[in-house]
């Protein structure tokens, strides 16, 4: 649901057909995007809304709720001195989402980190391998069902 008060916001208006929800809290704008259309949304944000920089990509695990993962994109517009947060939800059973690295090359490492720590797969990523943990590591440490002490055998 996009609240009435936000429909006049140019950023929300430009993304209205791809967005499922939007909110403006703590002076920060968050737009939730349909996960299947995230690449299109990012492309539009970069091209039309002048958000030149992708600040970070990360995840939030809402376990045991479904859809389990929120993928969060922080963007910055240097020209307009604005910041924007995009969010897409993916399911725990099949955590897959289109990679942002085709739009912002800098997303590459952030997505590898999110893949490593949450186990979310980014489709069409040039090199989706672990970045923090050893290559043969089992499990994804930032998942809520991963114990803080690590898995012991």
């Amino acid at each position, binding site marked *: 649901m996009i609240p009435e008060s936000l429909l006049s916001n140019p950023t929300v208006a430009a993304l209205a057909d791809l967005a499922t929800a939007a909110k403006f809290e703590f002076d920060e704008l968050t737009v939730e995007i349909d996960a299947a259309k995230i690449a299109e949304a990012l492309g539009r944000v970069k091209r039309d809304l002048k958000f030149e920089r992708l600040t970070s990509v990360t995840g939030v695990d809402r376990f045991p709720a479904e859809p389990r993962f929120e993928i*969060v994109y922080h963007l910055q517009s240097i020209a307009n*001195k604005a*910041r924007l947060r995009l969010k897409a939800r993916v399911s725990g059973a099949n955590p897959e989402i289109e990679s942002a690295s085709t739009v912002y090359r*800098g997303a590459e490492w952030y997505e590898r980190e999110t893949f490593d720590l949450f186990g979310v797969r980014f489709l069409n990523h040039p*090199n989706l391998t672990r970045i923090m943990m050893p290559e043969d590591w089992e499990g994804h440490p930032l998942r809520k069902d991963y114990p803080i002490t690590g898995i012991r055998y």
Partner: protein
Amino acid sequence: MSITTGVTSESDVRRDAAAHQESRGHRTMVLNMGPQHPSTHGVLRLLLELDGETIVKAAPDIGYLHTGIEKEFEVKNYQQGVTLTDRIDYLAPLSNNLTYCLAAEKLLGLEIPEHAQWTRVMLSEFTRLNSHLVWLATHAIDIGAMSVFLYCFREREEILRIFEMFSGQRMMTSYFRIGGLALPHPRGWQKRVKDFVDIFPSRIDEYEELLTGNRIWTGRTKGVGYISLEDMLELGVTGPMLRAAGLAIDVRKDAPYSSYEKFDFTVPTRTENDVFARYLLRIEEMRQSHRIIKQALEGMPSGSHQADAPGIVLPEREKMKTQMESLIYHFKIVTEGFRVPEGEVYQAVESPRGEVGCYMVSDGTQKPYRVHWRGPSFGNLQSIPKLIEGTLIADVIAALGSMDFVLGDTDR
């Protein structure tokens, strides 16, 4: 077939080198630089494919210092989390404290007294000086200027003493807390800071005398380590690297926090975009930080060092002995912490290395649901292949040094 920016396995690079050998008709060499190489300032591993002395491909490999700090935040209550932030970027602990506290305070809606805000600004600028001094010292030693190291550490020692005076700790300060400062100002701080402020400009002149006109220094740094502004923006580079390419971007000016808008300072820029420009830029940043510290010292407002927020800020010791409420609050805060309203915020702060960001998600309990740390070094390191591919191996050290990364910040 080509190596992508993040190849981690050696076999990939070797396979690639073999493919190049066929196309070039002669052998290329794969060199493994790090993780225990003194000039990588920590445990960065670089896989370099060399054709003679020229770098054909570079692949950084990080993660050797991964400590799971983001996971750790989720089992600590909000106030305890401050101590973790010190350990992320261990050369800029107070910038990290500030980022974390500002994010939590935004969620709580706390109003911080001016006195505490100004102290935060002053000590954050000391942190910038501290970090830039370590950078200059190690960068110079990498390139071969031994004595600069000793000069820089002389002033750094004085800054660490000031930190110790305020917080009781030289490096892991945890001096900023949610709601203000950990302790009131120590007795005699003005003299300590004033002595430093009086002497420091002449000390910067000393460094410049040693380096700026030095023919070996300029020979090693001028025209080395070029990377285009477009590539940097695309790859997520922030901070001095961007400013040395002519883009006046600084969170302190673009979105002022902690009353930075009340201070008079400029954001220096250079246009040459090489290692030498980054050196001159950081020197100028030190002069600007000195200006800010001087203003903070002279105009420090009086008042409380903590916000008026019972239930979040610990009550005064004296009141606990006479007032029932204070005793209850103290017990509640210490045993279970305080609840933070549901919501999510992203707080950016200009650290010595660039934009450090804290994305904090609260579910209304005493512990953060998720804290994501956007370390500036992580974004900066991503540009290494662009920065050094095609250059000579002797320039790698100079180019890497000009980036000023901290591996604790990269790996978290």
